[in-house]
């Protein structure tokens, strides 16, 4: 009776011991050294796995930071203190990366760009609307306003305003590229916050045709080109295009004569913020012309 109990126990214990020895030998034999600092750095990262740094996931980023000396400031989600902590832990100098945010290249909300039809396609997403004749808006480049980007944003940095346009909260935006990818009209671009001059339009139509479809369309009138420093703005396919290599030369006076308001100078960090009072333009005032017509 006792033997019947003891023999299986002994066999089990023996097997356990045997496998234990094999496992411990295997552990010694196949051990891969891993820098313990990777774990610590990973702990210090925000675990958002957003991909804004260009590396898939926070763990992979931590590996790059520790092993390949990637700049920890590439993580746009971490606060400055967080970056400093990582830098201090690793004993390196973290260079500051300029903050990059998503900008919408359209200002034509429901009040500016009219609809020609009403979309009842069942899928209430921009993607769904875009496959039906490019959306119900008359302007075929404009924002469809159903908020795919707000849905896609992991950081809740995008909300739709009363004009059915997405507003990016620059403080929350981590430039993870999700909204850029999801927008069927390719209206989002990632831009450093120092780029204040922005053309919020992508319509390639000529002057009146563009304006007929949207009251804030760029008509390609070239006034901003004349008012800005040479080379800063150019007109390509009836659309003002800013050469951001000359961003240092950009100034708010370029937008003053824009007839539609397609080109803006961002006062704060966010787009579509209520306009604040701007100073009168510099330049020579032609006294002979009354009612204060200004010329550069």
């Amino acid at each position, binding site marked *: 009776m006792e033997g019947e109990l003891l023999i299986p126990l002994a066999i089990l214990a023996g097997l356990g011991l045997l496998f234990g020895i094999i496992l411990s030998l295997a552990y010694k034999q196949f051990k891969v050294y891993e820098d313990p600092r990777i774990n610590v750095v990973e702990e210090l990262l925000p675990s958002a796995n957003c991909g804004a740094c260009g590396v898939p996931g926070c763990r992979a980023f931590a590996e790059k930071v520790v092993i390949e000396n990637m700049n920890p400031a590439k993580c746009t989600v971490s606060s400055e203190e967080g970056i400093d902590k990582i830098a201090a832990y690793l004993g390196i100098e973290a260079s500051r990366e300029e903050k990059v945010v998503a900008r919408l290249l359209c200002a034509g909300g429901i009040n500016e760009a009219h609809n020609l*039809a009403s979309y009842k396609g*069942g*899928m209430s997403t921009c993607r769904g609307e875009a*496959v039906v*004749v*490019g959306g119900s808006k008359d302007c*075929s480049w404009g924002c469809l306003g159903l908020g795919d980007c707000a849905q896609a944003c992991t950081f809740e940095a995008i909300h739709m305003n009363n004009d059915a346009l997405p507003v990016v909260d620059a403080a929350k935006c981590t430039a993870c590229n999700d909204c850029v990818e999801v927008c069927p009209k390719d209206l989002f671009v990632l831009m450093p916050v120092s780029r204040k001059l922005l053309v919020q339009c992508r319509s390639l*139509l000529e002057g009146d045709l563009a304006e007929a479809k949207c009251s804030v369309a760029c008509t390609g009138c070239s006034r901003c080109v004349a008012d800005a420093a040479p080379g800063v703005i150019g007109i390509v396919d009836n659309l003002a295009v800013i050469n951001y290599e000359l961003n240092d030369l950009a100034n708010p006076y370029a937008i003053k004569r824009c007839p539609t308001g397609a080109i803006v100078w961002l006062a704060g960090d966010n787009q579509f913020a209520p306009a604040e009072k701007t100073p009168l333009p510099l330049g020579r005032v032609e006294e002979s012309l009354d009612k204060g017509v200004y010329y550069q």
Partner: protein
Amino acid sequence: MATSTYNGKTFTFKHGVHPEEFKDLSSHCAIQRMPFVEEYILPLGQHIGAPSTPLVTKGQKVARGQKIASPAGFVSVALHAPVDGEVSGIGLFANPSGQMVPGIKIRTDPYSTQKMAAVPVDLESLDNKGFINAVQEAGIVGLGGAAFPSHVKLAIPEDKKCDYIMLNGCECEPFLTADHRVMVEHPEEIIDGILILNKFIKARKAFIGIEVNKPDAIAALQKLAATSRFPVEVIQLAVKYPQGAEKMMITAILGKEVPHGKLPLDLGVLVANVGTVKAIADYFRLGQPLIERIVTVTGTAVKNPANILVPLGTPMKDVIAWSGGVTGDAARILLGGPMMGAVQKTLDTPVVKGTSGILILGNDLVKDITEYNCIRCGRCVEACPLYLNPSMMGLLAKKGRWEEMLDYHVLDCFECASCSYVCPSGIPLVQSFRVAKGILREKAAKEKTAGQS
């Protein structure tokens, strides 16, 4: 002709749906020629493939039938002026896809006539390559709706052999009767077109597949087929949607399925729409390139449904106005049929090579659909002519799990909309597959460019 196994029988494929036909509205209306209007808008990309390259400049005088844009690459065709006139602009114009695309605008010369300085093409002098080149220069594309350049289909690779020429006269979309009228009024041209095609393709036999709801078309073609020098057989196909889809017609006639990822040519079949074959015959007999097509203007909100021979580039509003206009309760405009046609948001869009009909639905047929949850009834599975699982793909699409939809062969879906048509829960199935296909294609293109760099 020898008796055949096809005699008197009706063939079809499995699955599919039976939407109400509404063909009586216009099937009896003889084709009318539309007079010229003031302005024509010709988008450069009316076909699948690279948009044509314009050959004219603003202010230049053009003549009816003159080439105004040349093909840009092999999968591209030429474009011709539909009227005598003057190029009044080259720029961006509305097109049926809803995008603004590059196009040529022609202001009609008030004295423009139907006359064309065209000469018939000498068939005898052409070799295979010359024939394909001629079809490309004639601007001929598939007139069934997809507008795929015909010469690409006709350029049969060395290692493949075409045994059967199959003409598609099904016209399974409800409302449309353009192909029907072509078959009734121009059967000689169709048979002629087959002979021209066969001179170069050298097939064994030609089939013309026609749904049995067009008895007059069947009779007209059967009469000519009986005396034809080349074996042509008219096949009666059951009235079912999407019988006119290329793959469905092959299954119905040959009893074989086109395998996944293969073309009809792998089964030795070349499929062409009856209208396309007529266009080919017109070019080689009369020298007339593709500058006009037959468009059905119909719908429950159209005053006088009609089949109209419209010069390409005529704005939709002019075609509708000439046909007699719309009734008060017009609610939705489509180019093409109600199942696969493209909804339009503006009447400025011109008639292009792929426009088989202008359909204006009244309030009686346009309903707001409320979406409910999938009840797993399986009707979409039974309707799908390709034996896909729309229900499962719909659920995946709702969650945005696009990549998993690949396992369910979403890319094989040709968007016939049978699934959405039968869904009792009003789920936008085919709509979400279109979105999925777009996203997946974008991703594949991105990966391809990433792989190259």
